[in-house]
């Protein structure tokens, strides 16, 4: 049966067909939908873990117990899970274990553009890279077989254009993988130095055998066309190259990007006049070719940075590129904005008003850095706001304690922020941490997390009590505010900055886009009362704009949060239409 499927959905289908039984992941664009689709299969246990390290270790545990298992994450999530990865390479697995990692060339939704292939090389584990949904499904199944045959976790590398593109897949029946018995094997699984030294050569032997596999595997194939140009490519770059050259070039299409074949590449190089590698991000295949002593072009032609496309490849190889017409007008940019009614807005307005230093974190609230709020001054990685705040305050003491805060979302706090809060409690910096608790993992599209009280299927689940958790970390001052109440927010932020001990402020209100959140009726501007002071414009609400110098509300966008009403010094914005 043929179906159109998103790359991520195809991976989930592959999990089902491969008899995978346990999936544990942390959401991260562009990997999130793999786990969401997997959760629709009754035979697969799926969960959202608090972070990627936990997810990978859960997945390992399930593999050890004898069930095929999987975990998914975005590229930066693999940084968090790198610790288990490097040692699981030594222990190997019991039942097949596959790790899905999705890179984001072009940084559509990420803070950096790292190339996950480095992890496969570093951890010495095989990595497969599909180039469309059909391969995403097939390679997922092959990855499980390889995992079991070579006793290793296998990385499945996706990227934004594969994860978030739909193409046609062919569905097959589910194969029931057997449960493998768990045998205690201390030398294999207890990686104390003496045992790790015994496993170390096994990793190298395995790599040698995997290279042999790569030479003849159907994952890697030659497609001979015109021999004037030989292109080595994998993943989405292969598709762009085919789009441009079709049969006018020859291809070595790599489905396995670690370890790379040697004889196969030499053989291909022999057959073509000009050898080029087309790969997004880092020159990994190219470097490998150079180590083989081959004359090859790659990054001398193509950029290290960003996504490729058919036009880019045409241009760099001297072929005609297409172009369209442009208007003479300047087209204003349309950056993403906090939604109308977003509960984060009130807090950021107060932080902006008080001109505080704000150490931020990963989530929708990074939009607090945008105009007109400009109220976030760092955003590095998950959890970093709280630990950086501690360091900032240790470095400057009273000078910064009174005017510096950390802001972090509920999901991000439980991901890796809580460790940092323990550090504040333990080492005692007088820091003020604001947890923006919108009761969901927002930016990745509304996933449940340990503080929401629901699991991935939406069923009631264990619920972390954030207040109790913060107190248990050694924070005595824990306050809860409603971010729609500006007066309360300002008072509490001032009090906690003034306090002589660390504190946590939980700004609690669910994301306005959640289905169960009811919106108030849109608010209205009493034109004659508006004195054009523009203070409401400082909220950066997309529903508020100016018409002939006076405030106006877009009724279709307004969520009725009434934050602007409390801000207006002239009572020009009103909830009640009758009053207008």
């Amino acid at each position, binding site marked *: 049966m*043929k*179906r*159109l499927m*998103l790359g991520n959905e195809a991976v989930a289908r592959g999990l089902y067909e491969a008899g995978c039984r346990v999936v544990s992941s942390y959401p991260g*664009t*562009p990997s*999130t*939908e793999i786990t969401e689709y997997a959760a629709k299969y009754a035979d697969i246990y799926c969960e959202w873990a608090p972070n990627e390290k936990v997810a990978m270790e859960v997945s390992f545990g399930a593999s050890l117990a004898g069930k095929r298992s999987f975990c998914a994450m975005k590229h930066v999530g693999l940084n968090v899970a790198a610790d288990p990865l490097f040692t699981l390479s030594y222990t190997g697995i019991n039942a097949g274990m596959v790790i899905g990692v999705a890179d984001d060339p072009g940084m*559509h*939704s990420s803070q950096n553009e790292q190339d996950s292939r480095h992890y496969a090389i570093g951890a010495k584990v095989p990595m497969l890279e599909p180039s*469309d949904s059909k391969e995403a499904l097939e390679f997922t199944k092959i990855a499980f077989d390889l995992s079991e045959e070579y006793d290793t976790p296998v990385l499945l590398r996706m990227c934004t*254009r594969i994860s*978030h*593109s*739909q*193409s*046609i897949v062919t569905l097959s029946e589910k194969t029931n993988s057997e449960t493998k018995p768990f045998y205690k094997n201390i030398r294999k699984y207890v990686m104390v130095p003496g045992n790790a030294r015994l496993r170390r050569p096994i990793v190298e032997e395995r790599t040698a055998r995997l290279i042999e596999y790569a030479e003849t595997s159907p994952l890697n194939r030659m497609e001979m066309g015109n021999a004037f140009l030989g292109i080595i490519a994998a993943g*989405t770059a292969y*598709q*762009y190259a*085919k*789009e441009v050259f079709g049969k006018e070039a020859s291809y070595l299409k790599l489905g396995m990007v670690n370890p790379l074949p040697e004889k196969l590449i030499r053989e291909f190089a022999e057959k073509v006049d000009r050898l080029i590698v087309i790969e997004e991000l880092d020159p990994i295949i190219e470097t490998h070719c150079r180590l083989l002593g081959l004359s090859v072009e790659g990054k001398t032609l193509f950029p290290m940075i960003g996504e490729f*496309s*058919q*036009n880019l490849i045409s241009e760099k190889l001297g072929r005609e*590129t*297409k*172009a*369209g*017409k*442009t*208007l*003479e*007008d*300047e*087209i*204003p*940019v*349309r*950056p*993403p*904005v*906090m*939604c109308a009614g977003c509960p984060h807005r009130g807090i950021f307005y107060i932080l902006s008003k008080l001109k505080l230093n704000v150490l931020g974190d990963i989530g*929708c609230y990074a*939009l607090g850095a*945008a*105009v*007109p709020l400009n109220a976030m001054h760092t955003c590095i990685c998950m959890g970093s706001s709280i630990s950086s705040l501690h360091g900032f305050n240790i470095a400057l003491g009273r000078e910064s304690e009174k005017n510096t805060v950390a802001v972090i979302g509920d999901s991000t706090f439980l991901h890796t922020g809580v460790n940092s809060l323990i550090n504040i409690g333990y080492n005692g910096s007088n820091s003020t941490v604001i947890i923006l608790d919108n009761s969901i993992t927002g*930016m*990745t*599209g509304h996933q449940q997390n340990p503080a929401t009280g629901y699991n991935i299927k939406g069923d009631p689940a264990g619920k972390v009590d954030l207040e109790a958790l913060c107190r248990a970390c050694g924070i005595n001052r824990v306050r809860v505010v409603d971010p729609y109440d500006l007066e309360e927010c300002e008072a509490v932020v001032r009090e906690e900055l003034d306090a002589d001990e660390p504190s946590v402020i939980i700004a609690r209100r669910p994301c306005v886009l959640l289905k169960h959140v009811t919106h108030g009726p849109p608010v209205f501007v009493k034109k004659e009362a508006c004195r054009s002071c523009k203070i409401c*414009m400082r909220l*950066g609400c*997309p529903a*508020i*704009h*100016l018409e002939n110098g006076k405030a106006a509300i877009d009724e*279709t966008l307004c969520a009725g949060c009434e934050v602007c009403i409390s801000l207006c010094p002239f009572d020009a914005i009103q909830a009640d239409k009758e009053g207008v």
Partner: protein
Amino acid sequence: MKTTNIMIVGVGGQGSLLASNLLGTLLVEQGLDVKVSEVHGMSQRGGSVVTYVRFGEKVYSPVIDKGEADYIVSFEMLEAARWLPYLKSRGRVILSTQRIDPMPVITGAAAYPDALIEKIKATGALVDAVDALKLAQRAGSVRAANIVLMGRLSTYFNMPLEAWENALKECIPPRYLDLNKEAFKLGRNANN
């Protein structure tokens, strides 16, 4: 058969994913090779979003590049102007006359260009401008403006109405189906 390229552009939250799903479902049913490339995540929050739909005998790249689009379906006027360089010479723009000010316009840092439809026409593009919001409202919900535009797009393809209706049925939950079918028809039959 040469590959046909359709871009669906708009503002995050306007329903471009449903529109591209509808097209994808329809085209696969016609036995064609199809690729649809979407945007999820951060840029959805009121930002400019673009979806690529490509179909033909064999499609390789999932994206559409500058000068390649046969059709640009735009849910908003400024977005049509933004993505215009992707249109082929004599390609067609199907646009909703809705205007949504981006934040730089709201804050007064930039101006929303005037007379966009005329300016787009002046480049030689074929323009089909539809008051999709009004028609969607008539069908029962402003949220169905995306389907109004799909109805409009359907007039440029030689595919039976039944095929479109089957695709609607597949992509839309039953309780919203009638509303969306109506929106589709209003778009398909709109006079310009």
